[in-house]
C-alpha cells in the first residue's frame, strides 16, 4: 500500500471539476484508491463520493492506494494534485 497527503489550496475546496478530474485520473488504475478527509472516507474513483467529503480549502486529503499498479498510481495522483488540483 502507498499513502500520501495533500492539502487543498483551491479556495473553492475540492469542488466538482477538480474532483471529477481526480476521479477520472484514479479510474485509469486498477488499484483501490481511497481518500480520507475530516474523518470521512471516499472512493477516489467516484465523483459524488469525493464531493461528499465536503473538503474545503486547507483540508488535508489522505490518499491510500492499494493494488498491483499502486506505484504508478501514486506518482500520477501526486502529479495531478500538485498541478491540476490547485492549478486554477
Amino acid at each position, binding site marked *: 500500500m502507498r499513502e500520501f497527503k495533500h492539502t487543498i489550496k483551491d479556495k473553492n475546496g475540492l469542488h466538482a471539476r477538480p474532483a471529477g478530474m481526480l476521479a*477520472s485520473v484514479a479510474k485509469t488504475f486498477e488499484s483501490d484508491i481511497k481518500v480520507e478527509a475530516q474523518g470521512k472516507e471516499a472512493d477516489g*474513483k467516484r*465523483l*459524488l463520493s469525493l464531493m461528499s467529503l465536503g473538503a474545503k480549502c486547507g483540508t488535508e486529503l489522505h490518499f491510500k492506494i492499494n493494488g498491483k499498479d499502486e506505484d504508478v498510481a501514486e506518482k500520477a495522483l501526486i502529479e495531478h494534485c500538485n498541478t491540476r488540483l490547485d492549478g486554477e
Partner: protein
Amino acid sequence: MTKSIRFNGIGITNGKVSGRIKLFGSSKRKIINSRTGSALDEKARLEIARKAAIKETKALEEKALKLLGEKEAQIFEIHGMLLEDEDFLDAVLEEIDKGKSAEEAVRQTAKSYGEMLKALDDEYLSARSADINDISAQIIRFLTGDVAENEENDTEPYILVASDLTPSETVKLETSKILGFVTFGGTPSSHTAILARAMGIPALVGTGTIGSIYDGEYALLNSEKGTLIISPTENEKREFEKEQSAYNKIAKEHEMYLRSIMKKPAVTRSGHKIMIYANIGSEQEIASAISNGAEGIGLLRSEFLYLSKDKYPSEDELFSAYRDIAIKMQGKRVVIRTLDIGADKQIPYFSLPKEENPALGYRAIRICLDRHELFKTQLRAILRASAYGRISIMLPMIISAEEIREAKSLLRDSMAELSTRGQEFDAKIELGIMIETPSAAIMSDILAKEVDFFSVGTNDLTQYTLAVDRQNPKVTHLCERNTEPVMRLIKIASEAIHHKGGWIGVCGEMAADLSLTQQFANIGIDELSVSVPYLLGVRGKVSECK
C-alpha cells in the same frame, strides 16, 4: 386579487403583447410514476436514456466550448462526469431493484444526493445539487421520450424570457411562436435586441433576474413603457387592452398607408429610383419579404445553413437551399453573401481558435481564401443555383483588390469544375463586395474595377471607422448620431462604383434608419436592403424624399 409583479427594462421596438411566459430552456414535463416493466426492463431503459444524455451533454460541452469559452463549458463537463458517476448509477439501480420505475428511481436518487450535498454546509457544493437536478431532468426527458422538438409543436405563442441569448441560441428559436422577448441582461445592441428588431416584435432587455416560478404565468409586455407585468390584476389587464387597441389602431392605419404605396416603385420626388431589398437569414423569411414588397434579396446571410448543422454541409445540401430561394424569388435578384463567420460568430465544427480580437481576426473572406475547399464548395453550390434564378455573389470583409482577384480565381476554378461535370450555371454571375472596412471604402476606385457592385455593411464599417465596439454598452452611444464619418466613406465608394458603371447598396442597420434616407438618396445609393419589418417604412420614406 393578488398583487401583480412588475419588472422594468429597456424597451426595444415599440409594441404591446400579452401571453404566457416561457422561460428559455425550461419546460414542464410529466413523470410516469407507475412501473411498466420488470427491473431488467427498467434498467435497460435507464441505460439507453443515460447514454443519450451523455451524448447530448458531450455535444453541448463542445458547442459551449467553441461558442462561449472554457468557463461556460465547464458546467457541461461536470454534468458529463455526474452522468458517468458510478455512485449515482448504483443508487438509481438500487431504487429500481426496490420496485421503482426508472423515472422515479432517478428522481429519488437526485433528491437524496441533492439533500446530502446541501447538508455539507459549503455554498459551492450545495449549489451542485442543482447540477444533480439538471442531469436527472435530462435523463428523465430521454426516458419519457419528451424531447424538446416535440413539445414545441403544441405550445401557444409565448413571451420568451431568458437570462440572455447567444447567437446560436437565437438562430435555433422557432420564431413564429414568440410574441416578445425579455432578457435579464443584455443591451439594446445585444443579439436578442437585434433579433427582436429583425422580427419586428417587442422586447425588453436588462430587467434583472426573473425567477423560474413565473414560468407559464400570464404577463403583459409593454416595450414602449419598458414594463413587464406578471399575473396582472383585472384593472391592469383592462388598462393594457385599452392601450393595446389604441396602439394597434394607429399601427394598422400606418400599415394600410404603407401598403397603399407598396406597389409603386420607390422613387424620390426628384426622380431617383432606389431598389428596396430585404435582408434575410433563412428561406422561411422569403414569403414575408415578398408580401412586404421586397424587390429582391440584398443580403442572404449564408451562415444559416452552416449554423444549423453539426458538420460541414455538402455541396448538394447548399445547392438545394440556394436553388429553392432562387426559384421562390422568381427572377428577382438574390445577393448571397459568402460565409461570414469568425471568432465572434462561431460554428463548432470549424474549430476556430479563440482570438483576443475577433473583429480584427481570422474571419469571413480571410477564412475562405485560406480554406479553399470550404469556399469552393459554397461557390459551386451558388453557381449551380444560379441556373434557377438571378443570383449575385457578395464577398464580405474585403480590404484589397488582391483578395478579390484571389476569390475570382477560385470562382473560375469552380466554374471549370462544374463545366467538366456538365452542370449548368450562370457564367456571367454578378460579383460584388461588402464595403465594411475603411480600407475598402478608401480604395474603392481600385476595387470597383474588379466587381459589378458594392454593398455597404454599415455595422462593421461604423465599428471599424469609429473604433467603437458595438457590443460594449459603455461605448455604443458614441455611434449614435455620429454617422457623418461613415457617410463620407459611403460617398467615396458610391462615386467610385458609379464611375465604373456599377451599382451600390446599403445593407447594414443604417439602411433602415429613416433619418438617413434622404442622405442616401443624395449620394446616389441605388439600393437599400433592410430586415423585413422595415421594408414598407423605408419604401414610404424614399417616396417622401426630395
